[in-house]
């Protein structure tokens, strides 16, 4: 009964989405207030219905209802309760339902936090989101119904993929999807502005917090996925340039460009055509990512069971949504003005440089991801593009980007002077060189790439310090305290500084791991030791342990540093009988300056094991950097300006509405 209720709620939602997609849009066109007024209640009803369907599916999982095909394929009665709940999005159908839930949640959020927007704008935005929801609902109902029944009812389910039985998987997909789908808001704002012809600084100001919010989730989602790969796959890597990882990284790159471009559009009313295009492209890449993951055109560690009808459906949806929005762009954008002029050297130019580099980087990732597919499509054979390509392309693109990151925030809008910039940044440049040389001398043997990486991290920090110093220095003869001046810094600027600092931390972590990590695969009998520097690993053998739905061989490795015991690690080799899979569960001792990482390889003769012993310096800084970036986004998104403007514009629109037409 419960699954049927969920199924029915989805059909109702389809009807509501159809209303939400049409009447408010027509209403905005014909000036019909009653039609436009349907947008908000529809968005709320849509969220409630899809949320209800989602709960129904979750209830089937919790109650082990194996008469539901999707539950039988992704759960098992021995699966612990918390994983039964996360198994809801462990397969294709549930993931798409989660996608849909996020989409309706964002429309609900737009409906709730758009009181300050003109009625027509809100109606158009929600109508666009209504169409997206309609398309995805149709997809679920036509090809991926999670509520399909199974007869005869099996006594036991097939179990959730053991790789997904992990706390990281509990929050990674929802975070990532929040980010992916959150970009639909920027997309809807862009399409609505193109239709309404009100593409201006105001539009950029409305779009900014939404874009930043989506970007925060995307950043966290990608970081969680990377962390999950690090400790769950047992290879000690944190990024594999896997097609599915790339699918999430591409929208991130474009969303980052969009955030910077929106700043120019808001402040200077420039780049409008470019910004609106980025907003469309960012969400298009989210859809493309969904297509790549769900259609099975690419093979990847994330491979899901595939059905050709699904691929075809998403492709058709992709062509309609992206095709029509780009056609709309080609039609409307030429009439949008250019905005304020700016000099060759100005913050605008530097931000444009940043945008171009980010988009080129995204293009490079897209090329690397789709190249094997394109070759196969032209019958030129099956190949795969690996990390060497991406790393070769990325470092040269990242270096100028980081340089601009230091200069941009210090330069003036409209027109900047080179001598002025040079004299303000000379200390930062000097400090960067000195710090790099010092680090290279202290550590030794970091190579050119390592030195470049460290220099990039130091440059960002040094230019941030310069910026901060200039803002806190007494200026103009007004005597105020440092604390007072610190409070004067807008949150948007603070957020930017935090996020840029996060990039520095991230680059530092990546560089240290790349230049300093030690990976050893050694054969160890009981009592054998392996030394890496001052760290000694002693293998104490393995024993059998039983988990709730698996059996495991658990190894014991004692670690000492400089003769003092540090920790004992327990890497596992798990066997999940329901799916007949073995899983390597690494054991990690995290630390501020290094991670100790031990995982079990294969058993060797005489009770010995092949043991992988890794020391990863500063690897946690990679995710720490991502956290700082997300935190920066959060600080920037809560800038007073948006909250103050909310009140200001709502009063303004009331007065404008009251004036006789």
């Amino acid at each position: 009964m419960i699954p049927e209720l969920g199924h029915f709620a989805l059909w109702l939602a389809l009807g509501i989405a159809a209303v939400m997609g049409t009447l408010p849009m027509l209403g905005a066109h014909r000036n019909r207030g009653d039609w436009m007024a349907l947008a908000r209640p529809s968005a709320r009803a849509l969220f409630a219905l899809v949320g209800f369907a989602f709960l129904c599916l979750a209830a089937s999982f919790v109650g082990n209802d194996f008469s539901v095909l999707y539950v039988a394929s992704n759960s098992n009665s021995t699966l612990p309760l918390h994983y039964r709940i996360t198994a809801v999005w462990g397969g294709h159908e549930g993931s798409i339902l989660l996608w849909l839930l996020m989409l309706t949640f964002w429309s609900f959020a737009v409906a709730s936090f758009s009181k300050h927007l003109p009625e027509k704008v809100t109606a158009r935005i929600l109508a666009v989101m209504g169409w997206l929801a309609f398309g995805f609902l149709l997809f679920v109902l036509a090809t991926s119904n999670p509520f399909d029944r199974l007869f005869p009812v099996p006594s036991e389910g097939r179990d959730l993929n053991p790789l997904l039985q992990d706390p990281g998987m509990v929050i990674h997909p929802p975070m990532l999807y929040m980010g992916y789908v959150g970009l639909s808001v920027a997309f809807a704002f862009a399409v609505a502005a193109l239709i309404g012809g009100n593409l201006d600084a105001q539009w950029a100001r409305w779009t900014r917090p939404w874009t930043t919010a989506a970007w925060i989730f995307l950043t966290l989602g990608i970081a969680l996925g990377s962390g999950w790969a690090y400790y769950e796959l047992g290879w000690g890597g944190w990024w594999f340039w896997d097609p599915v990882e790339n699918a999430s990284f591409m929208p991130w790159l474009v969303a980052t460009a969009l955030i910077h471009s929106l700043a120019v559009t808001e402040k200077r009313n420039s780049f409008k055509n470019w910004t609106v295009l980025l907003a469309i492209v960012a969400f298009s890449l989210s859809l493309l990512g969904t297509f790549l993951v769900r259609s099975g055109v690419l093979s990847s560690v994330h491979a899901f069971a595939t059905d050709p009808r699904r691929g075809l459906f998403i492709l058709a949806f992709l062509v309609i949504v992206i095709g029509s929005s780009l056609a709309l762009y080609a039609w409307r954008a030429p009439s949008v003005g250019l905005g304020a002029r700016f000099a060759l050297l100005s913050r605008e130019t530097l931000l444009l440089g940043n945008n171009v580099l980010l988009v080129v980087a995204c293009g490079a990732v897209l090329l690397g991801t789709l190249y094997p597919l394109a070759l196969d499509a032209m019958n030129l054979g099956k190949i795969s593009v690996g990390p060497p390509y991406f790393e070769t392309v990325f470092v040269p693109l990242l270096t100028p980007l980081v340089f601009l990151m230091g200069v941009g925030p210090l330069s003036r809008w409209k027109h900047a002077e080179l001598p002025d910039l040079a004299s303000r940044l000379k200390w930062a440049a000097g400090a960067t060189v000195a710090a790099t040389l010092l680090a290279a001398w202290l550590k030794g043997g970091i190579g050119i790439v390592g030195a470049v990486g460290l220099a990039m991290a130091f440059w960002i920090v040094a230019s941030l310090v310069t910026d901060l110093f200039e803002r806190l220095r007494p200026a103009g003869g007004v005597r105020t305290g440092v604390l007072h001046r610190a409070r004067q810094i807008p949150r948007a600027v603070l957020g930017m500084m935090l996020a840029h600092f996060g990039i520095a931390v991230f680059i530092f972590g990546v560089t240290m791991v790349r230049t300093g990590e030690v990976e050893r695969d050694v054969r160890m009998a009981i009592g054998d030791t392996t030394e890496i520097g001052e760290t000694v690993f002693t293998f104490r053998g393995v024993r059998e342990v039983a988990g709730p739905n698996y059996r495991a061989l658990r190894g014991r490795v004692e670690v000492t540093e400089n003769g003092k015991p540090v920790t004992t690690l327990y890497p596992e080799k798990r066997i999940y009988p329901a799916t007949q899979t073995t899983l390597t569960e690494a054991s990690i001792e995290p630390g501020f300056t290094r991670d100790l990482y031990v995982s079990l390889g294969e058993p060797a003769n005489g009770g010995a094991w092949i043991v992988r012993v890794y020391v990863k310096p500063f690897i946690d800084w990679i995710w720490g950097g991502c956290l700082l970036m997300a935190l920066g986004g959060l600080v920037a998104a809560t800038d007073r300006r948006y909250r103050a403007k909310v009140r200001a514009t709502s009063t303004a629109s009331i007065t404008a509405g009251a004036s006789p037409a």
Partner: protein
Amino acid sequence: MKRLWFLIPLFAFFALAVVLAVGLKRDPREVPSPLIDKPAPKFALPRLDDAAKTIRLDDLRGKVWLLNVWASWCVACREEHPVLLEFAKKRVVPIYGLDYKDERADAQAWLARFGNPYDASLVDADGRVGIDFGVYGVPETFVIDGNGVIRMKHIGPLTPEVLRDKIEPLLKRLDA
């Protein structure tokens, strides 16, 4: 003229969509099995119903036969089972089971409960023979000809369509 610039994103996207559409028809996981048209790996395994008797690859020479890899723990095998039983009734071809990484008692109970479509099942308790055959998912089905050469491999549960459109035509050709 200026308008044309704004059409570039649209055209670029359509080019991409064409690549995706063609790519959709391909299966990236369709890695051609290196064993097709190669002699089947040699084996000598005990029968499930009688551990004292051994069946070797060479015992099966001279006739076309199916090797169906199954196990009592395999949920998909349960899905496949009615199809296989129905097919076995037709007596088109002898079907041998490879009971992969299974407990003998469980496997016997499973066949007793769901029916036995096999002429005989071989017990591959440690999965060695399965590895030789390149088994990476259960169920899998191999068509092996009279000279002991693997002619076809199907991964996943057999369906009436696969039997009708792929396996039966192949068997007719092999018999001819």
